[in-house]
């Protein structure tokens, strides 16, 4: 039988850097979307806390940390990133494995906000978009989820089929910001 090799969405495309901004791929991990059943939101949050130590995030928020995160990704929907979902969650919501479906990258460095300001129609400056805040929005024409994971670090998720476009768009903005900083 042929040997199969797992290939990450941004394989061969990342990491890249321009000026003091870096874009790298976050290593592939388990990703599970969770949609609470009707009337089960509070119970799901309790189950998440008991099993994984993270509450269900409110809209536009994320809970957890590197390696184990819950990110709000839409109406009545969150993404559990990292841990294997506990069986206790299944009583309160619909769980779907999405591990291979998303390209997940990390944009970091002093100018990261300036890069995103060229691409995203939402104010992501630290004064209003703090650590633990997340948005579902558009990066150029692409639907993305953006979460602030550090003082100058963002996690960006796009559909896997868009990985090359995502890298191209962000790289173009990174070069533009770097060129402006250099002049």
């Amino acid at each position, binding site marked *: 039988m042929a040997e199969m090799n797992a290939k990450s969405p941004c394989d061969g495309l990342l990491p890249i850097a321009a000026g003091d901004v870096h874009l790298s791929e976050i290593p592939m991990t388990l990703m599970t979307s969770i949609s609470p059943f009707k009337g089960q939101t509070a119970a799901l949050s309790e189950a998440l806390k008991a099993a994984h130590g993270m509450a269900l995030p409110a*809209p*536009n928020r994320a809970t957890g940390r590197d390696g184990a995160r819950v990110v709000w990704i*839409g*109406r009545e929907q969150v993404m559990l990133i990292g841990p294997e979902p506990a069986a206790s969650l299944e009583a309160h919501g619909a769980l779907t494995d999405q591990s291979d479906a998303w390209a997940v990258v990390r944009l970091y460095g002093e100018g990261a906000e300036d890069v995103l300001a060229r691409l995203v*129609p939402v104010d992501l400056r630290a004064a209003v978009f703090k650590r633990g805040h997340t*948005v*579902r*929005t*558009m990066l150029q024409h692409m639907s993305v989820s953006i979460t602030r994971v550090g003082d100058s670090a963002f996690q960006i998720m796009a559909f896997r089929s868009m990985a090359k476009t995502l890298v191209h768009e962000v790289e173009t903005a990174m070069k533009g910001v770097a060129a402006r900083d250099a002049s």
Partner: protein
Amino acid sequence: MRITCPICGERDRREFYYVGDAVALSRPDPDDGDIAWDDYVHNRDNPAGVTRDLWYHEGGCGAWLVVTRNTVTHEVLQTELASDAKEAMA
């Protein structure tokens, strides 16, 4: 134009997809007859003023919204979740 999504907050218009008149929430019964169905499927007012339309927050949370706006001033007067609007009609 800015639209305030009840879930996400105020967002740029380009995140939203325009669907059409919110009459889609008032689907007639199958037995209501040709006139009611003709109105529902085909007949739309085109007012210079306040309209009530369905929008989809495609680039955001994925919610369906009822947006009340003024086509003359471009003011967005009210936004609500389509599910809430439908429940309020029941």
